[in-house]
């Protein structure tokens, strides 16, 4: 049986992973640092909330709508904001500021929507959880099972796309050098739209799982964004696999380590939980700024092999 705390940690890791994959894809494929990634997740939370409260659709059935609407929002953001900025040759810093503006704009819209839901439908659209809509099977929470299955399926799907399909290879080429890819006949505009569909859909899907375990409101993204960017920085903002490893390390440290430390030093440490992510991020930047992706894995492997051989030799000698 998996302890509840570990289940929650894995659910959080899955949520952060989906968002970190989205942020990494946006940066590595379309050269856009998307600061609104966590707010895309909040949009998912409210799509799911609307499906359940207004249309009576089940919690996990709303996953489909989150994927579709999240993806559409991603494409709309690309067409209305990112594409015009890229067309006029905006720098990465300028695009970064534009996505910050988008983040603020979307948070305001979500707040207006939450007010509207509360006023019109008399539902509590702030500080809510959807835990009542979850199920349990043999001691395992539904959110743990579904989020893990969904995350695994997504990872396999993306892996297959990027390694086995022409569109994935073209995306890789676009990420390396967009102009060169265009010279080879790659339709980069279409690929950017596909990428931004994924960039919008994944965090929105993660938004279905978040309110099952944690209290949600329109500004919750302000806290999640630190974990997401810490994961991306730890991963190295390069590949989806590094983003996933980074996310799991951050989420485990945040959900498992902080309660453990609270037992030792006292409960005062609990409000600072998300600072663990921040601390890991700062240490990453100071010690290995290129993240896990930039580490010399071959050399590390050789060193580990040497150390293992030495240990084996000593053991034989004894």
């Amino acid at each position, binding site marked *: 049986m998996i302890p509840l705390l570990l289940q929650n940690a894995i659910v959080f890791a899955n949520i952060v992973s989906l968002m970190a994959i989205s942020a990494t894809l946006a940066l590595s494929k379309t050269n856009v*640092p998307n*600061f609104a990634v966590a707010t895309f997740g909040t949009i998912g939370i409210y799509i799911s909330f609307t499906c359940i409260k207004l249309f009576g659709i089940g919690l996990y059935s709303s996953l489909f709508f989150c994927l579709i609407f999240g993806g559409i929002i991603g494409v709309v953001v690309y067409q209305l*904001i990112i594409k*015009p*900025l890229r067309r*006029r040759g*905006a720098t*990465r*810093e*300028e*695009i*970064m*500021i*534009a996505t*910050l*503006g*988008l*983040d*603020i*704009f*979307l*948070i*305001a*819209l979500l*707040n*207006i929507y939450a*007010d*509207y839901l509360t006023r019109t439908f008399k539902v509590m659209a702030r500080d809510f959880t959807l835990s009542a809509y979850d199920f349990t099977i043999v001691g395992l929470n539904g959110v743990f099972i579904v989020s893990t299955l969904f995350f695994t399926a997504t990872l396999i799907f993306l892996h297959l796309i990027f390694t086995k399909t022409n569109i994935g290879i073209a995306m890789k080429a676009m990420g390396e050098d967009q102009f060169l890819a265009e010279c080879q006949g790659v339709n980069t505009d279409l690929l950017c739209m596909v990428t931004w569909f994924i960039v919008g859909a994944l965090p929105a899907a993660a938004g279905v799982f978040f309110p099952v375990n944690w209290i949600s409101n329109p500004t919750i993204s*302000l*806290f999640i*964004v*630190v974990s997401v*960017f*810490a994961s*991306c*920085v730890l991963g190295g903002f390069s590949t989806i696999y590094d983003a996933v490893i980074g996310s799991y390390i951050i989420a485990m440290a945040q959900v498992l380590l902080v309660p453990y430390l609270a037992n030792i030093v006292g409960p*005062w440490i609990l*409000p*600072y939980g*998300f*600072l663990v*992510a*921040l601390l890991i*991020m*700062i240490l990453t*930047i*100071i010690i290995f*700024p290129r993240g896990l992706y930039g580490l010399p894995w071959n050399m590390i492997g050789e060193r580990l092999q040497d150390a293992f051989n030495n240990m084996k030799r000593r053991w034989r000698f004894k």
Partner: protein
Amino acid sequence: MISIPGLEFFMTLIIYIMIFLIITLSYNMAYGYTGIPDFGRAMAAGAGGFLCGYLPGRLMFYMLGFQGDYLENVYLVVDRINVILGENPLLSIALLAITILSGAIAGAALGLLASLPIFRGIRLFYLGVTLLAIQIGFNTIVYHWPSFIRGELGVPVPDPFKWLTYYSSSAISPGILRSIGIIVTSGVVLSTTIFYLVSISRSPLGRVLKAIRDDEISVAALGRDVKGLYVKVMVVSYALTGAAGAIFAFYQGYVVGLHFDRVEWTFWPIAMVILGGLANYKGTVAGTIFFITLKRFIMFYKANLESILPFSPIWIESLLLGAVLILTLIYRPRGLFPERPETSLTRKEIEKMREVKE
């Protein structure tokens, strides 16, 4: 019924404009001139502001030999401090100067810490992400640290402008006198900021900073210490913002752990600078005056807007901020006043030199 703003509204407007001008001008130095995507500006303002909640009260508490715990009796203690400050103009001015200076030093220290990743050779984009995250962390620590400024409860700040009402006639209201005191204080800091930044922009250093923004590698190839200059700019810029934060805390008279949030103190200054035009002080001044005036009027007419808008007017500022940032970057990336080459000599001086040569 639409009410017309009175004298107090315009005094408040002037104070806000002056305080935010210090912030936006110093931000323009970091982003406009040097190209540092600094998303941690609220942290610098907070360094000065929160220190204002921590330092002057405690300083006076120990100087005057009060007994007991400062935070437990903070209202009573600050009331008694205010009575003493009201009778001592010199002590008040000294306390004001020490606090603003300490706020600037705290801001500079944070600027140094925030720019440490630069020494590791990280990309500027990473620095932006890091500063945004560090700023959120900084606010969380202050908010949850009860022994600093009592977190969400906050603390009152001693009033170093009390003596103005003590020595003045009753013809002018105490509120107006206090506002005049704040305007004079922020005027001194703003004048220093403008003088310093304009001098830099007209000096060879200003041109080096612009060159770093445009092509960092070329500047390094010419033997300039690019990383060192980044750090110096961050330190000076954060110090000025820290001073502005301290003045704002004195103006508010109360500091809470929720103050100095990222939207108000980071994103609005960014929007002001971008709308006005980068590396351009005229534009920054125009952007700041425009946005602050707009924000104050929205706040003043909030009740009237409530009946017109289909949503609560508290969200209009965020909608406006997001829309302005996006639209300016798409349609007018160089701002209202595009950057122009700044000459170190005036036109008259150049003409004079030409005449001499001829």
